[in-house]
């Protein structure tokens, strides 16, 4: 859609009464107020407003959801689901903020950096707590969805 080289130019805005099919891609910010069926990709940020409905994957550095998204979301920076936001799909981000009132049905993934933090925390755990954790792992192996 937009020119990927032009990082300083204006982004893309999809109006509330627009029904769009295809890949919406922009180097700058994308704001969706309408209905999009397809991918939404930005190198900066994607804002899905209250009136928006997106059926397809969303990826950007920063993603803010106040509308409805049916699809996976990848935010390399931050993902925020606002009180009016509804997400049905998996999310991948290192900074996730789900506000009270938001709906999130799916699996949340954290990138490698967070796994390292988890390992560090495990190393610093007392021996008894480690044993207890391992026993719990054996007993329950499930995923919250």
């Amino acid at each position, binding site marked *: *859609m*937009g*020119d990927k080289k032009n990082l300083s*130019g*204006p*982004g*893309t*805005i*999809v*109006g*509330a*009464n*627009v*029904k*769009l*099919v*295809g*890949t*919406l*891609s922009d180097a700058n910010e994308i704001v969706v*107020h*309408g209905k999009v069926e*397809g991918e939404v990709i930005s190198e900066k940020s994607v804002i899905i*407003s209250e*009136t928006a409905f997106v059926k397809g994957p969303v990826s950007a550095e920063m993603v803010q959801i106040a509308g409805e998204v049916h699809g996976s979301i990848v935010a390399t920076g931050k993902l925020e689901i606002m009180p009016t936001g509804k997400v049905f799909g998996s999310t991948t981000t290192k900074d996730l903020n789900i506000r009270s009132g938001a709906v999130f049905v799916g699996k949340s993934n954290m990138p490698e950096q967070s796994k390292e933090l988890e390992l560090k925390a495990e190393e610093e755990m007392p021996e008894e707590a480690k044993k207890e954790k391992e026993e719990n792992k054996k007993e329950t192996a499930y995923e919250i969805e």
Partner: protein
Amino acid sequence: MYYYIMEPAGGKAVAWQERVKTILGDLGIAGETVTPSPARTIEELASLGVVKGYSTIVAVGSEKLVNKIVTTIINQKESQEIVLGIIPDNYESSLAKKIRVKDLKDACETLKYRKLETISACFIEPNKYFLTEASIDSNHPVDAYLTTPFIKAGLPFNKITIRPGLKINIFDTSSKRSGNKLFGWLFGGKAQNNDVYSSFFHTKRLKIETLDQTLPVKVDDEVISKTPIICENRPKALKIIVARDIIELNK
């Protein structure tokens, strides 16, 4: 050698044109000056300039004049080396800002110092170019399809504007929103800056189709095409003379 195309003038514009000629003469860049008439259109005069072998064609007047000359220059195969100069009649216009001139004297001096810049132009099939803005207007909301290489969008609109770089603004002033504005105004609410009904896209090529009716596409209040239209951004389409950059030294 410069070839000046001046718009036909009446009233105050006659004095303005005389002033232009005087300044150009003082700067030593006076050249052949022609004025369109019912016998010779702007496009014909611009073609004549190309045929005569002028390397610089200068549009003296409105944006309408400039866009017509631009169309002629770009459409002429032999005109690749022709440079466009502009002496605008309005220094608040987008064209004056594009060439970075602030008044008549500045515009004339800019021509003399000849800093060249290659710019992109908007192209509307079959053969129209413009550097300013094209618009499609309707008094009531019209349903349309906008198609680019990557998307197809169905949208209602009242106005669509297309600017160089193929930047498309779509305005949808539906009655619902007007009601909201009135409600906000009546109850002392602030005007809504967050207009959720307007859209903005930028692309390299697009097609606009209006459903059930054809609408005129206007550039400078002149109809240049009718829907459906196919538009393209033509990068590096034309060389124009722009003002030199001024480096201000802090003393």
